[in-house]
């Protein structure tokens, strides 16, 4: 009889070679083929909508921009106003819908993967196969994570194109790419937020073990993180600039704006501010503006993309660790 509890180095060579990644990826693909088809259909419709609406918006904008070039003046300001009136609400609504994409990735792609396996008992099948737990789980998470992140990256390109007339360097541009929502939807941030949502979902799934509660938890956690970032975190990536002239570089992200009176105290009455603004020059009154200049856009994108990527990898590592130690 073999002595127990003795680690025998000679036994190492009985370790079989691992099952190749190619085969594990096939398994991952086969299990999510249906959900992938659903996701592709949804995203396809969304992309088609952005494309068609984008062509209309850009067509209308081209006409307005031509007007501004050929006959600058009052008539064109009116044309711009009319254009914004016709299309800005549609564009803004589309942006809000797009913001739901990462949330859906977390809820419908990330959360169910392990929650369903644990809830339905199929983990007893999956985790007792020759390939073990770690590599198949990694393959199952990596495939949807990578495809969703790539899809999100493509969508933020599409959105940038679609929304261009409102960001454009024209007078009275409606939106700044640095504004909280648009910053999230453009650059690399959107792909990073999608990956993070997926990773949050996956971890929620293995922790909660039941699909619907895990989906709800993933949605809550991701929304909370996004809100905290928009409201508190992002503005601190770099120390903001302050100006006393009321003039900021175009498309800057204005964080706060206030007036001080001749005595140096902050003007709190709205009527007083209106009076200052209407009174032409306002000796003794100073307009303070704290802002992030638009030139920092890519720097901020890299910071946000970087920490979200690090967080996602950490969450996926935690998920794998939970799978490894999860006992029946």
């Amino acid at each position, binding site marked *: 009889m*073999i002595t127990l509890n003795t680690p025998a180095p000679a036994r190492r060579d009985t*370790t079989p070679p691992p099952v190749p990644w190619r085969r594990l990826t096939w398994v991952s693909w*086969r299990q999510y083929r249906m959900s992938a088809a659903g996701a592709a259909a949804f995203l396809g419709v969304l992309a088609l909508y952005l494309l068609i609406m984008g062509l209309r918006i850009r067509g209308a904008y081209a006409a307005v921009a031509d007007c501004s070039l050929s006959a600058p003046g009052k008539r064109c300001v009116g044309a711009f106003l009319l254009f914004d009136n016709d299309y800005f609400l549609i564009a803004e609504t589309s942006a809000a819908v797009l913001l739901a994409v990462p949330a859906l990735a977390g809820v419908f792609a990330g959360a169910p993967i392990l929650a369903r396996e644990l809830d339905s008992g199929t983990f*007893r099948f*999956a985790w007792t196969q020759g390939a073990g737990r770690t590599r198949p789980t990694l393959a199952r998470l990596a495939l949807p994570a990578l495809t969703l992140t790539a899809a999100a990256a493509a969508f933020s390109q599409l959105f940038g194109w679609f929304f261009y007339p409102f960001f454009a360097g024209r007078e009275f541009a409606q939106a700044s790419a640095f504004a909280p929502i648009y910053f999230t939807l453009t650059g690399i941030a959107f792909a990073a937020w999608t990956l993070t949502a997926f990773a949050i979902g996956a971890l929620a799934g293995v922790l909660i073990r039941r699909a619907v509660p895990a989906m709800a938890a993933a949605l809550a956690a991701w929304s909370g993180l996004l809100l905290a970032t928009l409201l508190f975190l992002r503005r601190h990536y770099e120390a903001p600039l302050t100006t006393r002239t009321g003039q900021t570089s175009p498309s800057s992200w204005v964080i706060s704006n206030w007036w001080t009176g001749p005595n140096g105290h902050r003007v709190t009455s709205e009527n007083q501010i209106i009076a200052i603004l209407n009174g032409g020059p306002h000796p003794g009154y100073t307009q303070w503006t704290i802002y992030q200049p638009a030139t920092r856009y890519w720097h901020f994108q890299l910071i946000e993309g970087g920490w979200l990527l690090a967080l996602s990898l950490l969450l996926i590592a935690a998920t794998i660790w939970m799978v490894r130690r999860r006992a029946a």
Partner: protein
Amino acid sequence: MNVIETSGLGKRYGSTWALRNFTVAVPAGHVAALVGPNGAGKTTLLNLAVGLARPTAGAVNVLGGEPAGSPAALDGIAFVAQDAPLYKNLPAADMLQLTGNLNRRFDHGYAQERLAELGIPLKRRAGKLSGGQQAQLALTLALARRPRLLVLDEPLANLDPLARHDFMGMVLAAAAEDGMSVVLSSHVLAELERVADYLILVSGGRVQVAGEVDELLARHRVLTGPAAEAGRIAQRLSVVHARRAEAQAHLLVRTGGPGDPVPPGWEAHPVSVEELVLAYLREPGAAALPGPARTQKAEPTEVSR
């Protein structure tokens, strides 16, 4: 070689010990049945052996010394869990492909042949198959891996008698062909008689009886005689369980072998697996272990009819 070997094994869920100080060795080349009342720790033991659970105390080694759950152990053991979990939305053909891709070895030819024999349509989703067919599919997937050890947790629970017969027939055929060892837990005692040649009786998280079925049967017998003398006989012999019907008493006793003398006025009958198991299940205090039997000299309770 022992296919499962535990020493001082303990598993605690919360504050309850499902298994405690559990030591057993299941030799290779057997169809070993794990029998015991609900909550005895059978499923816990199997989960530990296939690496789904980790021991709280002690160790489980499988396949002659591989730690449970190690790559070599996972490679050599196929497990069919209770209720045969399968991906219900996948067709049978895809379950084959999937299992093939999750293992280094997979005998596609064998699997397809078995499913054809069983009349399981390859295109039908696993969830749409009958309970018996799902169990058959899960077993086919396990056997096509050509495991050295097949572990089955309550494989017969939801099957009708015919499906039970076919299921165990397939297990026995594979065991005879490949020299594969089998460890299964079951409540279905009648079926065990036909298939198991090694018996492990678990009760209250410890081993009560373990040994080859033939040997266990040879070392036990039923004595039938006048009820009035039952008490006197019980003092001289190692009685596992006594049952009194009218004026007659039936004593299931341990013996040295068939040659042991029978008390005058009593009749000796060979014991069946079912009788043996039931007797021990009714007497959780009694134990018959291989080697020097650890017999507790507790007075057996009498069950009157």
